[in-house]
């Protein structure tokens, strides 16, 4: 198990969300999109110049920016 930030995840790998360091309303919105503690998140790809990030989470696909991805701690298998 290895801890890192979602923004540092390699494309095509999956991790589990450990914590989200955003204010309550915003992390609430991310939770509604499927990004919450314990959720499994796969980084599908990054757009040109590394932002935004294309994520696959809970059966749907969501894009977020690198700024927010830096505030999401995750744990990967390797």
């Amino acid at each position, binding site marked *: 198990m290895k801890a890192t930030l979602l923004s540092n995840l390699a494309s095509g790998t999956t991790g589990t969300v450990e914590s989200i360091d955003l204010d309550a309303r915003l992390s609430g919105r991310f939770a509604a999109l499927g990004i919450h503690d314990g959720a499994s998140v796969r980084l599908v*790809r990054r757009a040109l110049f590394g932002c935004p990030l*294309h994520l696959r989470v809970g059966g749907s*696909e969501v*894009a977020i920016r690198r700024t*927010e991805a830096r505030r999401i701690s995750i744990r990967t298998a390797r």
Partner: protein
Amino acid sequence: MTAPRPSRIALIGSPNSGKTSIFNQLTGMRRRVANYPGVTVDFVEGELRGASDAVVVDLPGTYSLDALSPDEDVTVTELSGGHGAAPDLALVVADATTLDRSMPFIAEVLATGRPSIVVLTMIDELKARYGRLDIGRLHRRLGVPVVGVVGNRGLGVDDLLAQLEDPGKWHPSWAELPEAGADAAERRAWAARTLDEVYKAPREMDPRTRRIDRVLLHPVLGLLVFALVMTLFFQIIFTVAAPVQDLFESGVLALGEAVGGILPDGHLRSFLVDGVIAGVGGVVVFVPQIALLLLMIALLEGTGYMARAAFLIDRVMGWVGLEGRSFVALLSSYACAVPGIMAARTVPDPRSRLATILVAPLMTCSARLPVYTLLIAAFIPRSTVLGVLNVQGLVLLALYVGGSLSALIAAAFIRRGMRRGRTFPFYLELPPYRVPTLRSVWSRVQVGVFGFMKKAGTVILGSMVVLWFLLNFPQQGAEPDAGAEVAAQDGAQASQRETQASLSYAGQLGRTIEPAIEPLGFDWKIGIGLIASFAAREVIVGTLAQIYAVEGGDEDTEGLVEQLRADTRPDGTPVWSLATALSLLVFFVFALQCVSTLAIIWKETRALRWPVFAFSYMLALAWLASFATYRIALAAGG
């Protein structure tokens, strides 16, 4: 004996859950847009099929009852009765293929205790992708009716209509729901427990979507495809719509002739033929283009490509202080700035939203299209480059690109002028690709075209009537009530018409502003057109049609294009040089000539200073850019 039906049924659910296709099924698309005084709201309402006393309301999509953006606020307010009566029934719509995610939201709504029915869409897709759902058991767990539907094909809709007759079952009284005060984590835990027994999510993402995205979202390839899509978009508008438009044009001319032939010479004939038919007809001929534009936007949204475009362009939008969703609002502004500005409600960050609103009118709306197509058809050569690309289409593309780039640059300046503060995050859902249904695409096109026709019937007709009076009075060379004599004097007719237009009230007005627009290459006739076009841009086409009809005489049946090309100054040089045409095109790229847009900016920002600001900066921009264009074109020999 049927129980009383609910009189107000609200559709709520996350974006892309399929609310609108359910709405279309329930109402047969008899929609009406509601406007609630005092609140900045309008969403779609329609009568329930076969029940004139029941209203179905299609609300903006929301992920949670804790609204972050103004459009979500509309939904939350409606649900709590903030727009008057609270709905008698909430139809909670969720995509069955992503139920893991939407279940906590369903719990949130049911916990409010409001009468509800849960509608699960995409049941067919769930099965196709090896998912499973036990609707009967889910119903027992939730305590309210659960109906599975395939919205676009209408499967399950009869079942839903039957449930609407049974109000006794809508209350989630005996289900083990999380309490109203439960936090998000508790709701998620409840949702996971509930779904564990009754639901198996699809094994994997729609494989087709994944394959398509590998190309369309590719960092380099995806952008190339994006550029290609946009180029095609504008080529199609010009090449496909043009012949249809010619047909419309000859129809308008024929109608003018027919009416002119029946009526005796005089004010009534002049009013109907030169004023109403030439004026409104000159604008109505652009319906094919506008319909085509709306059709392509509906296809881009319906297939799911619009969200990909927002993803690809978010970085660029970020540089100027906007975000991917601003792009969607700006792209809608290609149809009309009014829905575009309203679409800016989906942008949660207040400063990004304001900047989006203030630059949206720079996007090339369909009202500019009549002006562009007229001037391009008249003055840009109909040749091709590289064998296939039509020069007229390329000029149109350049005008669109110019408008879009200036919007981005303006946004960067506006954001720079704002104070920094808390930023809201960007998030964007990428829905699976779907083949849009004919019905949903048609309804988008229909609503837009009818909106345009309504404008042609009100604002444009009104402007045309006022203009006819301004152009025909005071009467020259005849008694005011003996207009018939004017036309009867055969020999002196042409010069008399010229005098009539130039000495009329409108002509005087045009001459008054001539010094201000003369540096741009415009004469007093264009001046009248510009003044008139501040009501709505496309009015300039009808205005020029009227001016030339008044000048050219009633028997004149050549199209406006030929009349513009043939018009000369007293010294014999053409009024419309290429430099003048380019200058006018550029003026229309920038100027905010639209009363409806100013009104919606005021309404959405709730401050008069914003429409005033937008109008002023765009007028200054238009004048300077036109001046530069005219001078450069003259120097280059245009």
